[in-house]
């Protein structure tokens, strides 16, 4: 097939992406710059409001914390799953994905039952006399993080199991024969080889947590808004579409910027030459 024909063939798909992805984005973006004073005045006004900045930093903090927890929890589980026999691995991978088959609202209601004042967790702590008064976990940043970790752990594990399965186990054995203790082998041989997989997992979890709506809505309540719930409140409750658009654009910029930074870090850690 010649190049010209290939370009013609790509046109329908390209147009589709253009219409369904970029057109709505542009439609959201344009009104935010249409202000009488200056082009960025809507953004300046938004960022001058300390409450908004608080929501942004809360969203960011929740996302980063979730990524770190999910990574720390996901890595050992993934290692264990990836190093099982093929059929065991398949069953375990399916089980990991199983929670994702349930409805997000239902899953979050389950966490309300667990984390609430009279929830299972508080009853357990009280029964063991670890605490005297029930802890308020629900409707805090902590409950949003717990919900997000639960939501995104399967994604991280799936991403990591894939990368670990591709590794040659003899590489780690070679390190051991050369005198590397299991700990040294883990940090110097295994982790560096996994950098691309870890990066992909982190990006997925980060982007997911930054933009998640159901989990912070149900587990965060009205006093712990994140950017996505703030957008909803501005647009649907207050009817302030302009403000909602501004937040949406800020959210996109922050997410894109964070991903770019993560990518840079990942590049620095992974010094392998890229072989096209």
């Amino acid at each position, binding site marked *: 097939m010649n190049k010209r024909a290939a370009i013609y063939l790509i046109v329908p798909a390209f147009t589709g992406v253009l219409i369904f992805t970029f057109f709505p984005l542009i439609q959201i973006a344009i009104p935010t710059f249409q202000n009488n004073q200056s082009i960025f005045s809507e953004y300046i006004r938004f960022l001058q409001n300390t409450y908004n900045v608080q929501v942004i930093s809360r969203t960011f903090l929740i996302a980063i914390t979730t990524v770190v927890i999910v990574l720390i929890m996901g890595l050992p589980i993934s290692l264990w799953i990836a190093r099982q026999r093929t059929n065991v691995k398949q069953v375990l991978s399916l089980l990991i994905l199983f929670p994702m088959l349930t409805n997000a609202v239902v899953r979050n209601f389950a966490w309300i039952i667990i984390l609430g004042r009279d929830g299972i967790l508080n009853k357990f702590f009280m029964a063991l006399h670890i605490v005297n008064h029930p802890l308020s976990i629900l409707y805090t940043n902590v409950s949003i993080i717990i919900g997000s970790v639960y939501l995104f752990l399967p994604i991280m594990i799936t991403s990591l199991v894939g990368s670990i399965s591709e590794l040659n186990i003899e590489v780690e054995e*070679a390190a*051991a024969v*050369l005198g590397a203790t299991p700990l040294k082998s883990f940090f110097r041989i295994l982790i560096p*080889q996994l950098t691309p997989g870890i990066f992909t997992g982190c990006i997925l979890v980060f982007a997911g947590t930054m933009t998640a709506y159901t989990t912070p809505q149900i587990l965060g309540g009205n006093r712990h808004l994140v950017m996505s719930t703030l957008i909803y409140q501005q647009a649907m409750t207050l009817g302030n579409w302009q403000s909602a658009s501004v937040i949406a654009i800020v959210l996109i910029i922050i997410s894109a910027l964070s991903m770019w930074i993560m990518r840079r870090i990942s590049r620095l850690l992974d010094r392998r*030459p890229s072989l096209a």
Partner: protein
Amino acid sequence: MANLEVKKLAKSYDGKNKVLQDISFSVNNGELVSILGPSGCGKTTTLRIIAGLLDETSGQVLVDQADVTKTPVYKRNFGMVFQSYALFPHLNIFENVAFGLKMRGLSKTEIKSKVEEILEITGLSEFAQKYPAQLSGGQQQRVSLARALVINPQLLLMDEPLSNLDAKLRLKMREEIRRLQQKLKMTVLFVTHDQQECFAISDRVMIMKEGRIDQYDTPQNIFHHPRTEYVARFIGYDNFIHFDQAQVIDNHHVKVGNISFESIDECEKAKVLTIRPENIEIVDQNKGDNTILGTIISNEYLGQSFKYRIKTELGEFQVEESRKKMRLVGEQINLEFPAKHLHALSE
């Protein structure tokens, strides 16, 4: 380097099936010993237990008389070359080779001089800053060897190191391994399934069958005096005549069917006669003893010779003959088994 002694090594994963049993052998200082056998015979398992990558079920591994059976792999000070080379993909060649020295806590200047020296010996100096993925299979193989040797190991273990290389490179690398081994007086245990390869470079060869050692001897002795039919088959004795004790006439004579055979070996405790395809002669006249009449059922051109499958009253035989013209299928011929090439095997 050191000597290696393995005593009564056994391995079983489930307590019933024995992957290895009663493996006892020693490798002298500066000796290159090959373990030869088909896949699943336990040769790699043996090597991995010696390396410490796999736990034994029972038995002992001694290096210079010191028991290392319970020493963890990372404290054993052995070098190992893997079939997949197992280079660290995220480290360049210099760092790959330096890894073992780094783990041993050597100073930067010491590491630099040692790595540079071994890269020089293995002809890799120009690749120091490259990454494994940028090297060819043969070059990766040499890095793997350099990385194993730089730590000055007591013992070098090689697990099918040449099987991922193409035929030409394999020949070159095995010569290089042998040259290095003799130059540095290394004690090497070399696992392979390639008979030619292991006979070419080994001081002694150990042939394994179903988790046991079948024969452990010099390549020459194994070649001329295979102990069992299994070993004989492995090293190219393709023709076998089975007999029982009733058919033995005297110590060097056996009568099978109507034909009496004379063998160079003692036949009284033997069960099988064997001969290599190139040692059978096709003769015009049937002189009686050691000769059998047969019909050619297939012919094959090997370049320097022709290979025939011949059907006789004692079964099929494979014969190689150097001749200008190929014999045709269906031709009747007499096969003579010269007594000096006809060996008697006990198993």
